[in-house]
């Protein structure tokens, strides 16, 4: 009896897992989700594998997002990256270019403060880097020119 109950529980667990894996939401944070198999879903992130190709998926999202303002589409080497720069609840859609087992990975991320703070910090450091490089350039050129001027004056 115990074995039967255990088997029933395991069966129900597996069944629920299979159902969960197949039940792809129609949308995530207001962005339509294409057909496919749900891999992982949390409040901040949705990952799925779609039978459609990268180009088909990119075309699908371009069509869905047509007319929306502040949408940026970037063509990276191994992924296409769609980013929202306005106040929509989702932040990005990443579509892999290389299929895995005939399926394409799509990841949708929620708009998040980690990204905002991270990118701001990075860019603030970037300002320092730019001015530090300029500082190095000026110091080196200053020393070279000063020594040349001194030599010229000494000759005179």
């Amino acid at each position: 009896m115990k074995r039967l109950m255990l088997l029933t529980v395991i069966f129900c667990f597996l069944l629920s897992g299979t159902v969960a894996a197949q039940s792809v939401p129609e949308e995530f944070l207001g962005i339509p989700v294409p057909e496919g198999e749900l891999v992982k879903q949390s409040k901040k992130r949705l990952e799925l594998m779609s039978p459609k190709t990268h180009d088909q998926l990119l075309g699908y999202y371009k069509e869905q997002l047509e007319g929306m303002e502040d949408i940026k589409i970037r063509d990276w080497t191994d992924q296409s990256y769609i980013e929202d720069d306005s106040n929509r609840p989702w932040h990005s859609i990443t579509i892999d270019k290389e299929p895995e087992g005939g399926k394409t990975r799509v990841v949708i991320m929620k708009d998040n403060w980690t990204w905002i703070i991270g990118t701001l910090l990075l860019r603030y450091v970037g300002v320092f880097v730019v001015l530090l490089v300029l500082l190095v350039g000026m110091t080196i050129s200053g020393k070279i020119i000063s020594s040349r001027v001194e030599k010229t004056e000494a000759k005179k």
Partner: protein
Amino acid sequence: MTSNEILDLLFSTLRTTGVWNFQFNIIVMWAIGSLFIWLAIAKKYEPLLLLPIGFGIFIVNFPLVPMMGYADGGYPHLLQFFYRYGLEWEIIPCVIFLGLGAMTDFGPLIANPKTLIIGAGAQLGVFITFTGTVLAGFTLKEAASVGIIGGADGPTTVYLTQHLAPQLLGANALAAYSYMAMVPILQPPIMRLMTNSKERVIKMRQLRTVSRQEKILFPMITAGIIALLVPSVIPLMGMFMLGNLMKESGVVARLTDTAQGSLMNIVTIFLGLSVGATMHADKFLSWKPLFIFGLGLIDFGVCTIGGILTVKIMNKFLKEKINPLIGAAGVSAVPMAARVVQMEGIKYDKSNHMLMHAVGPNLAGVIGSAAAAGMFIAMFD
């Protein structure tokens, strides 16, 4: 002619006047325009810009005036023409930078290149304000354009705002120029708060003489480095450095005179009028401009604090200490911020003249705010 016909004629004539189409919200805009004209004339706050901006605000806020719209044939009206080809095409801020470059002596910055770091540190407010603006519900692009106000660099603010959030151009430009004009009021209390009496009397060594060759090479090096690291802002910085190269080369005196004189004056008129003309009551009267003014003030304060803190951190590692008061000049607002440092410094030691020392971070602030603007443009393009 019947009395009805006469009345019809009278009404049809009346309908073509501004009186018939009058809206009460434009009175607020007249008051705002007049306020800036008053600040320019009576208080002499950035008069070269606040006067045309104020008049631009005033004149576009009359019903039916053919100033910022389009004629029947699709041709732009006068101020729309200035706006479209000057600001929308991002030409005016770059031409102003050409003139500024032709006016600027980078000698103090070249003599003490360490002050470049202060210019970077003073951009702190730009990034902090960005966060606050996003929290208030602005879009990321709008937040970036509001954040740059703290850099206290008018042309950079106009350039970035036009690029990312043109709908905020009027409010952002007005906030930037207003706070730049109010540097002598806003900065001294922050400077006193952030420094102690010992720090305020630190005397810095006299700057070395900079050779002509160094001055000629500087714009080339700067333009090259900026073009490599932050290419998106090279229209601004490239023109800035070209203006400076023209000045330092000494071989194109006529061009230098034109860039820093007539050309600069002409584009300043167009800039002021175009910016003012974007502020029509229908678009401007909302909570956003007020919020931008409030955030801009905090932004400006944090940038000043950022510059002073940077000097204090640098002093931990330097043998020859820097007077932290010059950190306040890192916010650009050339040359007003440097003058404020000088005035504040001699209050505590009459023999401590810091004007030339403060010009270094002041100019570094211009480069720093342009670099920050470039970072934002790269983030969204």
